[in-house]
């Protein structure tokens, strides 16, 4: 007797199978495509099902809107050769050093700026662990604070354009890429402010930290700016193009990449280095696209099985206020983020979570920013907060446990920022609503 399964049962079995495969260590794109393929075939038959699955990789990847992604990634790899890390730190010191805890605050902004453009929080932390920590220790800073700001500053990158993870979110939930890129600004700024508050509080307890760096003239301040132009240029080009509707995200990405390329060439990038940067760009691009089409095969299956609607109905029927459910979902990300890359985590969960969150009445842009912010927090939390591991690997004299302790106040600041975003969603939605179309 053939076993007849209901659509619901097939959908649930599919979700469990995907979870098991991922835990077993199967590549996420393979696991998602496999479960999607088997699921679709079991629902609509072999030739119709497999035939349809065969069209998805091409039809879902080859789309003008998605072409911004390789360009943002290219900006990141070229940024390494633009020679701007020292200049960013120097400029941040001259402009922000007068505040209490000036060196730490300058470090936060320099790391955030470099990681925004390079698109790699952990790599930015590694570089500034070399550039900024020695200076802070020379000024008698607490080791834990010095390590904490370097690890934490890098996690602001995902909110500031060019942010690949923001584009990935927009693609999978079909939101406007331009609006998301714009929406990250105010939350990024609020997050930086909460980080500064932590430094102020720390300097209140430890006067050595409080020592401001004064004595820079305005001339010296402006003289420090040219070196930071590639970074400021890229962010401004993307921000202005989106806000004023001058260019599409792809066009803005192309202009941004070109600016960084010119900076890298002026900094004498060699052909070998360009080849390497392009190979790395191709590698990261194919990684992200493989997981996008893999997940979209799985999403097609979920749609046939009706899983997202069922899950949404269940979530809406729960006897909790919506914000409790949001906090619950963020809790899931906090745990998952300990074991997985942010992009993989978002793509695996959003197809099911996102429709439910929409049904609760939240704004797609708002949810995107909150979720992306949460992914940053995961880089700072034990057991495998990679940013902290990287700082400890660069600075053999600062034990990993001290780095985690130094990062802890910034994790609390992140939670505070997320609470602010949940309480005042207009902070996120206001700016994108001002966009000209």
């Amino acid at each position, binding site marked *: 007797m053939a076993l007849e399964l209901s659509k619901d049962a097939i959908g649930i079995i599919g979700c469990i199978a995907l979870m098991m*495969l*991922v835990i*077993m*260590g*199967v590549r*996420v*794109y*393979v696991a998602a495509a*496999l479960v999607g393929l088997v699921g679709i075939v079991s629902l609509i038959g072999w030739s119709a099902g497999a*035939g349809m*699955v*065969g*069209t998805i*990789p*091409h039809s879902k*990847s*080859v789309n*003008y809107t*998605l*072409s911004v992604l*390789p*360009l943002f*990634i*290219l900006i*990141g790899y070229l940024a390494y050769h633009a*020679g701007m890390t*020292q200049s960013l730190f120097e400029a941040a010191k001259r402009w922000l050093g007068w505040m209490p805890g000036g060196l730490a605050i300058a470090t936060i902004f320099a790391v955030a700026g470099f990681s925004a453009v390079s698109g790699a*929080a*952990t*790599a930015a932390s*590694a*570089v500034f662990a070399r*550039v900024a920590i020695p200076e802070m220790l020379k000024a008698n800073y607490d080791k834990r604070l010095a390590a904490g700001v370097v690890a934490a500053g890098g996690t602001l990158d995902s909110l500031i354009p060019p942010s690949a993870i923001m584009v990935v979110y927009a693609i999978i939930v079909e939101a406007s890429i331009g609006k998301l890129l714009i929406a990250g600004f105010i939350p990024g700024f609020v997050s930086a402010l909460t980080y500064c508050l932590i430094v102020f509080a720390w300097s209140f307890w430890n006067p050595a930290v409080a020592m401001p760096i004064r004595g820079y003239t305005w001339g010296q301040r402006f003289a420090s700016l040219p070196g930071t132009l590639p970074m400021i240029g890229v962010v401004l080009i993307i921000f202005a193009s989106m806000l004023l509707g001058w260019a599409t995200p*792809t*066009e803005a*990405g*192309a*202009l941004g*990449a070109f600016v960084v390329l010119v900076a890298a060439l002026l*900094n004498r990038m060699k052909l070998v280095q360009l*080849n390497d*940067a*392009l*190979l*790395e*760009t*191709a*590698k990261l*691009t*194919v990684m992200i*696209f*493989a*997981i996008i089409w893999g997940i979209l095969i799985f999403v097609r299956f979920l749609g046939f099985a009706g899983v997202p609607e069922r899950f949404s109905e269940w979530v809406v029927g729960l006897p909790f206020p919506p914000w409790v459910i949001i906090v619950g979902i963020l809790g899931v990300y906090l745990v998952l983020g300990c*074991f*997985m890359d942010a992009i993989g985590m978002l793509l695996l969960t959003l197809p099911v979570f996102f429709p439910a969150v929409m049904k609760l009445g939240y704004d797609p842009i708002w949810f995107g920013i909150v979720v992306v912010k949460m992914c940053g927090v995961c880089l700072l939390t034990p057991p495998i907060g*990679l940013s902290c*591991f*990287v700082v400890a*690997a*660069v600075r053999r004299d600062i034990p990993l446990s001290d780095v985690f302790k130094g990062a802890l106040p910034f994790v609390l600041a992140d939670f505070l920022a997320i609470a602010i975003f949940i309480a005042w969603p207009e902070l996120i939605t206001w700016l994108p609503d001002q966009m000209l179309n």
Partner: protein
Amino acid sequence: MAHAEFSDPTDGTGGGALGAVDRSLHRIEKVTSLIAGYGIFALMMLGVWHVIGRKFFSAPVFGYIDVVEVMMAFLVFLAIGYTERLGGHIRMELLILFLKGRLLALFELVSVLLALVVVAVIGYFSWTHAMRAYTLGDSSIDAEIPLWPSKMVVPVALALLFLRLLISLWAYLRLLVDPTRAAIAVPELLSPEEQARREAEASAALVEAEMGAASAREAR
């Protein structure tokens, strides 16, 4: 998104037949990835040309969006085998990192077998998808560029990935038979500590290069 450098598997000679086959395929993979990489470079130049042409000369690139869409297949698929060889595709390593010896080889082997099934099925049906476009003569809307070459990139890239997975299958079978042998022709499995150590090394090189460039500027 780690930027740490990995050793190039085309270097060296050891590993017998498996090592030789691995290196030959990786050379091909590297070429196709470079095509993808320079394609992304071209996408950048095309975008700059398009924007400048539109703003200052009222002469945008004809059929820009069509051209970008036709290019894209080359940019986002061709490096798939290369990335597999270098362990660049996302996976959850939580459980895998606890495993050792024969059990680890077994899990990796199952992973590879599942990937072979998926890649074979999707590869075959993406081929029929491309052949349909070829026989029907599909083309893009504005610039009327034929669509079959773009669609054909998918089965070609997946065929290269299939070959790569066959080599992995051989490599993990070899480890399953005798787990004491050194792993060859497969991606390295890195713990978070090891990843962090490589990232630290990469940053050292970068900071040194910047210091060098800065002192060279001062000397002038």
